[in-house]
Structures are given as structure tokens and as C-alpha cells.
């Protein structure tokens, strides 16, 4: 084992502030660092709001580095990759963690190419084996199989972590850490004319939601998804859909759960009127608790459900919404 291990974390932010998944990633890095008396450094680019550093430190950061430049306010991969590779020249990061979001996966690929290092995408388990060797578990074929991987060659080794998996640590109010703020220089990438025109719409994303309420063809029409929206609203969750529903144009593609859609791992997944194709099961069977509602008692969805209800989702959902509302308001 060679010296103190440095575990870096790149946090992600959008118009609404630091994304919650960033704190999960800091949590995961903290737990790993504690196995080897390592140090967690959070890199926060283009976001310098009062209080953010405290939140990072409470979640497990030993050091927070704010890198500031007007062009870092919104994520542009060229700028982010440039700023981070400069940092890694000063700070010998051994492991770099990012959220396995669209932006996190993209940035990890750019850093892999620029630094000549390996990346494990969408990890659901990470541990130190012995000394400083990390082993990570990541789903392949949307979770039909799990691959265990190790890294070789140059550092930092990069891991992107799937949202909703690394969530169980409570923030610690007594933690202390160091804070650095630096105004950095960036080359002018505008020759590449990568101009961000606008970012439209922000709502709770199904991959980041703690509770997902999904509907299939058994919902019988787009108008009935209102029932699922009501249930999701009561529970603070998001609404997903099966592939046939999306192919019928009832719901947007970004809500599709399954192998050619999104893979989700919420605490609670409701499958309403979804029979459970191989592709759909691949996208949701890593959820902690699954509730299935279907008229067909032989539907494959019941083979992965913790709680099954044989019945018409259109009748059962309003009852559930009423019961949850009653319980949560009492």
C-alpha cells in the first residue's frame, strides 16, 4: 500500500442546486476511505453557494475544492474535463467517483480518454479488497447479470455510482474539513461553438426518485396515468412507464423503465398493469421493494414482487392513494 489513498468526488449541480445523488457519492467515498484511512476530496466546479461546503463535509468530505470560472456555471464537458485534469496534476487522486448520471457517465468517458485510465460505469457495489485494491460490481445487460471488475494501469481509477444505491449514511454535524476556493483559467473552447442554449424543464427524475409508480398497458389509456400521478404525488415519487406505453405515445420516453429505457433501483417500485417482460424486469428488479398490481395472476411481474395484488389497477390505485394519504397525514 502506497501512502494515503485519495478518493475524489465530482459533484453535480443544476438549476435547482447540488443534485441529491452527489451526497450519495460522497457517502460512498467516505465509507470506502474509512476502510483504508483515506482522504475524501470533493471537487465542486462552478458552484460556490454559501453552505454547500458544510453539506459536503457533513456527508464525509475531508476537503472541498471550489473551482470557479464563469464558463463552469453550467456543465460543458470540455471545460469540466480541462479543469479536473489540471487539478489531478496537483493532487494525486487514486479513485475518482461521479454520479452515474448522463453527465457523469459522459465526463468519465472524456477523462478516461484524456488521462488513459479505466472507468467502471454504473457501479452498485464498491469495496477495498486488500491494501488499496478496489473491486466494483456493475450490472450488465440492464441487470440481467452482474460483472465484478478490478482496475489496472494508470490512476485515477474512475467509478460512476448508480443513484439510490449508496444512501444509508446519516450526515454528521460534527465533521470538520478544509475548504479551498480557486479562480481558474480555461482555454476558449468557443471555437467548437458548443453553446448551451437552454435547459428546459426540471422535475424529479425516475432514476433518482426514492419511489417510482409505473404503469403498463393495463392502465388502458393515457388519461388513466393521472391516477398514478396522484399516488406518486402523495408518496413524493415519480411516474414511470413500460415500453408498450411509450411506444403507444401515452408517456414520454424519458419515463420508460427497462432494457431499452431506464434502469431504476428505488426503495419502492409499483408496477401497475405491467405484465413484466424480460426487458422490463431487467430495468427494475434491483428495486428494494416491489409492489405489483395486475389482473392476470400468472403475469411474470409477480415472480419479482414482494407484494402482489391480483386486481384491476384502475380500481386498486385510488384506494392505495387514499390509504397512503390518510397514513401520511396522520
Amino acid at each position, binding site marked *: 500500500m502506497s501512502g494515503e489513498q485519495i478518493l475524489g468526488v465530482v459533484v453535480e449541480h443544476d438549476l435547482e442546486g447540488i443534485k441529491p445523488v452527489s451526497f450519495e457519492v460522497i457517502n460512498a467515498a467516505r465509507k470506502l476511505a474509512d476502510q483504508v484511512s483515506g482522504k475524501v476530496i470533493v471537487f465542486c466546479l462552478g458552484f460556490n453557494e454559501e453552505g454547500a461546503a458544510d453539506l459536503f463535509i457533513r456527508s464525509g468530505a475531508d476537503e472541498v475544492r471550489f473551482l470557479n470560472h464563469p464558463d463552469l456555471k453550467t456543465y460543458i464537458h470540455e471545460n469540466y474535463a480541462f479543469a479536473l485534469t489540471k487539478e489531478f496534476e496537483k493532487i494525486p487522486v487514486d479513485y475518482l467517483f461521479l454520479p452515474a448520471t448522463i453527465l457523469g457517465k459522459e465526463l468519465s468517458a472524456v477523462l478516461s*480518454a484524456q488521462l488513459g485510465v479505466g472507468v467502471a460505469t454504473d457501479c452498485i457495489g464498491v469495496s477495498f479488497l486488500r491494501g488499496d485494491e478496489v473491486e466494483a460490481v456493475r450490472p450488465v445487460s440492464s441487470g440481467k447479470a452482474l460483472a465484478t471488475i478490478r482496475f489496472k494501469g494508470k490512476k485515477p481509477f474512475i467509478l460512476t455510482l448508480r443513484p439510490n444505491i449508496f444512501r444509508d449514511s446519516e450526515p454528521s454535524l460534527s465533521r470538520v474539513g478544509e475548504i479551498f476556493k480557486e479562480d481558474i483559467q480555461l482555454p476558449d473552447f468557443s471555437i467548437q461553438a458548443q453553446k448551451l442554449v437552454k435547459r428546459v424543464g426540471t422535475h424529479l427524475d425516475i432514476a433518482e426518485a426514492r419511489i417510482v409508480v409505473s404503469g403498463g398497458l393495463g392502465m388502458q389509456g393515457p388519461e388513466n396515468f393521472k391516477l398514478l400521478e396522484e399516488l406518486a404525488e402523495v408518496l413524493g415519487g415519480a411516474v414511470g412507464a413500460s415500453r408498450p406505453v411509450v411506444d403507444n405515445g401515452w408517456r414520454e420516453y424519458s419515463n420508460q423503465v427497462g432494457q431499452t429505457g431506464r434502469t431504476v433501483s428505488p426503495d419502492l417500485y409499483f408496477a401497475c398493469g405491467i405484465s413484466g417482460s424480460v426487458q422490463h424486469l431487467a430495468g427494475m428488479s434491483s428495486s428494494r421493494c416491489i409492489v405489483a398490481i395486475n389482473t392476470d395472476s400468472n403475469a411474470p411481474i409477480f415472480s419479482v414482487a414482494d407484494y402482489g395484488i391480483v386486481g384491476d389497477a384502475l380500481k386498486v390505485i385510488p384506494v392505495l392513494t387514499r390509504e397512503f394519504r390518510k397514513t401520511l397525514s396522520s
Partner: protein
Amino acid sequence: MKIIVCVKQVLDTAAAIQIDNRRVVSPGSPRIINPYDEFAIEEAVRIKEKKPDTEITILSLGPECFKDSIKKALAMGADKAVHLMDPKFDGLDSYAIGSIFMRYIKNIPFDLILCGRQAVDVDLAQTGPILATFLGIPFVTVVTGIEFSDDFKQTKITRQVEGGAEIRELELPLLLTCQKGLNEPRLPSLKGIMAAKKKEIITLSGADLGIEENAFSMDDNRVEEVNLSLPLERKKGIILEGSDDEIGSNLVRLLRDEEKII
């Protein structure tokens, strides 16, 4: 315009899988074009329909059986194909595959490279952006909309992000990774299938690409797969019975008291 579309062949998404000797197997299941690559092929063909002097080249790296998907891509409307095939390409990581694509592409003219947003087998989403970075060209991942200026030099790209979308303006050349929602891929027509039989498929080995004998070995992979397993089966669940009201209050109690979720 010269368009390169990167295509991978994968196991049918409807297939149930088994694991044999640390490889995913599914005997008898069909192989298909990676679903996200189909959006890339379709988009290229639609651009050619608007701008007929466009040339579409399919670029694929894999064993002989990949020819099935290459032929289908040609039948959808691509003009020719380049198949990079060499036993030593087996089992390479995204970094190596990106490097091999780069070796081929850097010597040919192109305006646009289209890829799928990820392969549905390895689920990495790495090769596209790695290739763009090696080529030193801009890229956008997870693209759901592409608009061109009248002279086909400027683009306006819509891409998905969690909970929303971003719109970016870029000049060619660039690389885009395509997401569902971009278009509806066509089925090859009979005419397309017949026409594809006459289209050229160039097969190139590592040596043809000028790759040294000892370059690109699985031993150089930066990420090594040490195990592959099936996920644990979920414990058997229970079917709730009774009237809708009874089921409702029972479920709420279970989720609160037993599962401690709400």
C-alpha cells in the same frame, strides 16, 4: 456530407440469459443491431433523404457473425460498410475499441459520426465519447433531436438530461450518440435488402489498420472483469387478499411497519 455510423451487434433484448465460463450466453436467441445504433442508422438515412449527395459508411468491430447486422444496416439505406475484424480485438475494453476506431477514422474524411447512446450488453456508454475525444472533435451524448442549417454546416442538437433537456448549437464535424425518441427506425424494405447485396463490405484486420502485433491485448485492458454472475433471485413475495379496502390498508401497514419505507 460523409457520415460514419458505428454499429454493434448484441443479443436480442427479449432473451433470458445464462452464464457459462464467465460469458453471457443464450443458446438459440437471435442477435440484433444494438437498439440505440438503429436510431443512428435511421438518422443517417433521413439526412441522406434530405441531402442526396450524402455517403453513409457503417463501421463495426466484431467477429464474422456481425455481418448479419452490417447487412441489415446496408438494407436500411447505408451505402457501404467497413468491418474491423481480428481475433485480437476480442474482449477489449472501451478505451481500446475507441483507439482502434480512431486509427481507422483519422485517415478518412467525415463530417458526422453517429453512435448509439450505449450498447445494451455492456451498458457502458463510453466508446462514443472516448472516440470523439481521441479524434479531438466535439460530441453530444444521449441525443433526441438533430436539426441542420440550410447549408448543413451548423447543427442544433437536443439532448436528454435527468429531468429535462438541453439544446446545443455546434458546427460539424462532430460525434453524436443517439437516444430513443430521435426517430422511428424503419424495417429494411425488400428493395433495400436486394440493393444491400450489391453494396461493398470492406473487412480490415489489425494489420490492415497498421496496428502493431503486440498492441491492443486484453492484458492491457484498464478494467478487468474478474467475475460474472446472475443477480440473486428475489425472495418469494406474498399475494395480498381481501376487499380492495382491506388490501389497501394492509399494504400501507406492511410498507410502513415491515419495510419501513414510508
